[in-house]
């Protein structure tokens, strides 16, 4: 019997399917449990990859639940490439649609945060501007400053206390309060760090990343939140080595 890779793969990911005929031991007897070694290797290695990639989710729902959820996800969404560092890109949407976890509405955003942390970790290196570079700009021109950002910078919008949920579980931070938190991720050197954006910060950052000058971005931030604090946002960006160039628009 010839065993095709389509048949092998099908039986590998579906424990209810018969093991392929034509796989044998040295006496020609059906492979039986020998085939299950591959089934187990695939399930265990992909579950481990997900658990390493989504440690906050694993902590939030517990290891046993996580392994069960991962077992379902990996069978319907096996990796599309050998780059395990990116595996699980579809996990947030999967969690959103997964009925038994509907009561934990924040899980998908936490998974998005963990994906963004991984992207940031592997993003290209970039040289930040000098810490005093903004201070050297003529104050009259500050509103015309346009910025570019490091590839490791990530922005996330969430209706949940996203940063606090992450910090509570991963850093021993205080118990999350019921407030919406948008998140900025920067990577000062090699370790990405998430920060809660100040009110209006996401709107201002979205404007800046789209190439709008600082003055316009500040107005957009203030429009979005009356107490928007441009100084606090700039401090976060500078401390995280997030800004890679500044120039003045004519």
């Amino acid at each position, binding site marked *: *019997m*010839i*065993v*095709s*890779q*389509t048949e*092998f*793969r099908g039986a*590998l*990911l579906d424990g209810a399917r018969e093991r392929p005929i*034509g*796989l*044998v*031991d*040295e006496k*020609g*007897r059906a*492979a*039986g*449990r*020998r*085939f299950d*070694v*591959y089934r187990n*290797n*695939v399930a265990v*290695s*992909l579950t481990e*990859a997900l658990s390493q990639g989504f440690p906050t989710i694993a902590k939030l729902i517990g290891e046993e639940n996580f392994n069960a959820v991962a077992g379902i996800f990996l069978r319907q969404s*096996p*990796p*599309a*490439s*050998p*780059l*395990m*560092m990116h595996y699980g890109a579809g996990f947030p949407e999967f969690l959103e649609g997964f009925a038994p976890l509907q009561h934990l509405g924040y899980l998908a955003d936490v998974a998005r945060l963990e994906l963004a942390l991984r992207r940031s*970790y*592997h*993003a*290209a*290196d970039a040289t930040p501007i000098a810490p005093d570079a903004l201070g050297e700009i003529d104050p009259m021109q500050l509103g015309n400053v346009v910025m570019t950002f490091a*590839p*490791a910078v990530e922005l996330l919008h969430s209706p949940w206390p996203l940063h606090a949920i992450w910090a509570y579980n991963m850093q021993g931070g205080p118990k999350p309060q019921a407030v919406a938190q948008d998140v900025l991720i920067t*990577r000062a050197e*090699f*370790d990405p760090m998430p920060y809660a954006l100040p009110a209006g910060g996401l709107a201002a950052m979205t404007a800046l990343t789209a190439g709008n000058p600082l003055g316009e971005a500040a107005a957009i931030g203030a429009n979005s939140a009356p107490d928007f604090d441009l100084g606090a946002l700039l401090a976060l960006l500078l401390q995280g080595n997030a800004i890679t160039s500044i120039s003045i628009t004519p």
Partner: protein
Amino acid sequence: MLDDTPRFAKLPNRPGVGYKPQHYSDLISDAGDVGWLEIHAENYMGSGGRPLAQLRHLAERFPISVHGVGLSIGGEGALDPEHLARLQHLVDWLNPTVFSEHLAWSTHDGAFLNDLLPLPYTQATLTRVADHIDQLQNAIGRQMMLENPSSYLAFEESTWSEPDFLREVANRTGCGLLLDVNNVFVSATNLHYDPKDYISDYPLDKVGEIHLGGHDEDEDDHGRPLLIDSHGKAVVDPVWALLDHTLALSGPRPVLIEWDNDVPDWPELHAEASRASTALAKVPA
């Protein structure tokens, strides 16, 4: 690109270890008996950050072997052109001392299964594997080494023995071979043959690197031992004995300790490398 020509022309006939980031500072401060490092290609395909920065530093001090675990050389489908390009990019940038991959498949119909899956040794497989190796060697512009798998089962349809199959692949493509002695021990136990016969049949003159690793023990449906290649513990005594047997026939070779799961602290890993160093010291050059 770091260098025009590899900084280290060949792997030394010394122990190497599979590189784990938790051993970075130990390796930089005192590598002891460890003379070279192996990395898994797919872990260094990000755009930047700590993995590439560490690798850049290590490549200045150690010969590096790049070991691919995801190309699916035995896959029925075409090689993934994007992955070939990523391998080419990594090899161009790092200019490693050697490159190796596996006689196995891992990708089918767009799904990467993250395991080294077995192949029937037939004429059709031979043609396909040789074509894929040609493609890879052309892409990276250098010779690769192909590694023997660990087997838990056999294919009824196979018409070649594994050593004969590997020899023929090497003859057709000009690739070198990587001999994993633990895999030989695991396969020989699981399929009930003498591992020394396998070593005798293996084209040792084509072997540019030897692997050693730990395995787990289970049982098949008939209560007989079923060994599983886990890379999660120390190398067992019978595998060290098989290494001695192999080195006596092959002469000295670069010997790698693979420990990928439940990774130990540096002293424990280094002790394995020292044991390989002792084994190599017994072999006339």
